């Protein structure tokens, strides 16, 4: 099914068409800021040409969503499964409380990406950012994997401030040797050569199959700063029974 939209198309009309379409593949042309596309959907392949609005793929449960353009804020909120592939940049709060599936971004992402990301049983969410990430990356991260590859060409560091605040699970692989500015005390950091991390090798190779403009060998032949929390129970000592 092909749905052509323009700036006059209300999101509820577009989303109803997508939701009720019986086709396994849906293409949206001319997308211009329509919100909530693919919210709570499963079992479809959705290609979006243009710029989807906020909350693309919230509660996504198994769709493949490809964005030929940029995505805005809150992409993949509480996503449970599936893939969101963005051939551009993504806005703030990408992958909020994401529990499963993957979000691959060719370019940069904004503030608070991967915040409150978690893992559960065989579900292990993955966010890969080709460029750089904004402040508060992985805040409250409780599980899952965040990879930032730093292929931005603006000369800026691959992340801003307050990376990993409140992190208590999961892992971050940052393609840089310099520790992020002001990382919190409950996080341990080490520098490891990319090719020596099997989990990372698998993810980066998979990522590059979607973005042929990147070379996985080149990306992996570099040192990565690996951030992990050193406690699962950061607040245990904080309270006194009264």
């Amino acid at each position, binding site marked *: 099914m092909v749905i052509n939209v323009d700036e006059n198309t209300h999101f509820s009309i577009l989303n*109803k068409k997508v939701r009720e379409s019986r086709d396994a593949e849906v293409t949206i042309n001319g997308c211009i800021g329509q919100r909530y596309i693919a919210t709570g959907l499963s079992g479809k392949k959705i290609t979006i040409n243009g710029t989807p609005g906020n909350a693309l793929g919230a509660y996504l449960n198994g769709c493949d969503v490809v964005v030929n353009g940029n995505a805005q804020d809150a992409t993949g909120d509480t996503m449970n499964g599936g893939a969101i592939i963005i051939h551009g940049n993504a806005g*703030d709060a990408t992958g909020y409380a994401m529990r499963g599936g993957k979000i691959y971004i060719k370019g940069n992402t904004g503030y608070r990406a991967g915040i*409150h990301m*978690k*893992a559960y049983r065989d579900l292990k969410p993955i966010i890969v950012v080709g460029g750089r990430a904004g402040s508060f990356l992985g805040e409250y991260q409780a599980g899952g994997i965040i990879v930032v590859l730093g292929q931005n060409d603006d000369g800026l560091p691959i992340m801003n401030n307050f990376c990993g605040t*409140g992190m208590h699970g999961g892992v971050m692989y940052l393609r840089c040797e310099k520790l992020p500015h002001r990382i919190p005390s409950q996080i341990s950091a080490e520098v490891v050569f990319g090719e020596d991390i099997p989990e990372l090798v698998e993810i980066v190779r998979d990522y590059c199959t979607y973005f042929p403009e990147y070379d996985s060998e080149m990306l992996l032949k570099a040192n990565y700063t690996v951030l992990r929390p050193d406690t699962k129970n950061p607040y245990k*000592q904080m309270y*006194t*029974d*009264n």
Partner: protein
Amino acid sequence: MDMFIPAEYEVVRNPELCIACRVCERQCSNEVHKYDKDLGKMIADSTKCVNCHRCVCLCPTHALKIVKSDDTYRLNSNWSVQTMNEVYRQAGSGGVLLSSMGNPNDYPIYFNKILVNASQVTNPPIDPLREPMETTVYLGKKDVEIKRDIEGKLVDTLPPQLKLTTPIMFSAMSYGSISYNAHESLARAAEELGIFYNTGEGGLHRDFYKYSKNTIVQVASGRFGVHEEYLKAAAAIEIKMGQGAKPGIGGHLPGMKISDEVSATRMIPKGIDAISPAPHHDIYSIEDLRQLIYTLKEATAYTKPVIVKIAAVHNVAAIASGVARSGADIIAIDGFRGGTGAAPTRIRDNVGIPIELALAQVDERLRQEGIRDSVSVVVAGSIHSSADVVKAIALGADACYIGTAALLALGCHLCRSCHTGKCNWGIATQRPDLVKRLNPEIGYKRLVNLVRAWSHEIQEMMGGMGLNSIEALRGNRLMLRGVGLNETELNILGIKHAGA
């Protein structure tokens, strides 16, 4: 220096009656009681006692009572024993004081200073035993344009509504904070009564999907247990922005309380702290709230009402106005007396405002702005009785949430020790040996009894006022008078003083 803090309550055993059957010993998870072989009798360590009355209730010979200890520090009207002990505890541990259930302090209870009207002579009272008395309430957005098709027939444009047979629901209590058996009791009672219970931010256990028609599911900042099926199963979805017991802060479920079942229901790993951040980190404005509301509406194809729950705080009327414009179908307001499974003592006891004042102001503001019909209002935070329900509705509520009262029906004795996870009544615990003490078969019937009894009383009071529909009571403040309230309080409540 290890500071000894004397027992607040003392276990008193009548040696004439005690038969040393050791029931008390087996029933106490705090290990207060034990049998002393050398002495040949039961002894008790009162310092461990939380005064939950489990042993008193189960002692077959009624040999036990718990009394307030008369041990005291030098009396001081400024520094109470409790306050001094809190300083000792914090000096010893460096920790934030943690408490549970609602604020127990001596603040005014406005419901107790409001009286209800009754008819005499003209507009006579109605007898609910012989006249139909409507307590059914529909919660949801009602301000829709009336549309007709070309044949002139009405087009149904009404957004989804929740139908309650009586204006009472069970408030949000998560699986994790309360037990499986407590949840089952609430779910079954809600189904039997034609009302709703609320999962809180703890996910919906697989076994309880069968009660989903009577289930409100919650979406909070940690998004625990939130997934497509959970949203689609529910009767309504509640976004938790705040909680009366702890406005402005989030929650930490310690890793040790995350059992296999709790982990599966919240969809989080075992043993890792479950942290609900204070804010939703994607909500910084009413527009952002609107965005979350619409993701939920889109995910459920606009078939379910969305509730936004906020704590009653100083600017609650302005906040509620914003929420009403955000696309929410129902606003739930939780007053400062609202309960909790765990909250920092200082927050619980010092933050927020009474629900009566918050409700009166919210209803007033929404009316002034002409948007009262665009949302329903549900209130919570110590609804003690059917009289409080009647007063809340007359102050402008559509329905009430009850939490503490429901737990009392299940056996809770308000010992306020939920955060220890050792609830002897099988309610606020995940320990299998304790959970099984609460029989859901009995628990659900007690909840049904309570709500039915309250509903009868509501009908009696409505009849007394000459009203035969709960809708006619909503916001009907002429039915209320204050006693012993000052001018400011009366103005805020929008009621006259008794006699006026």
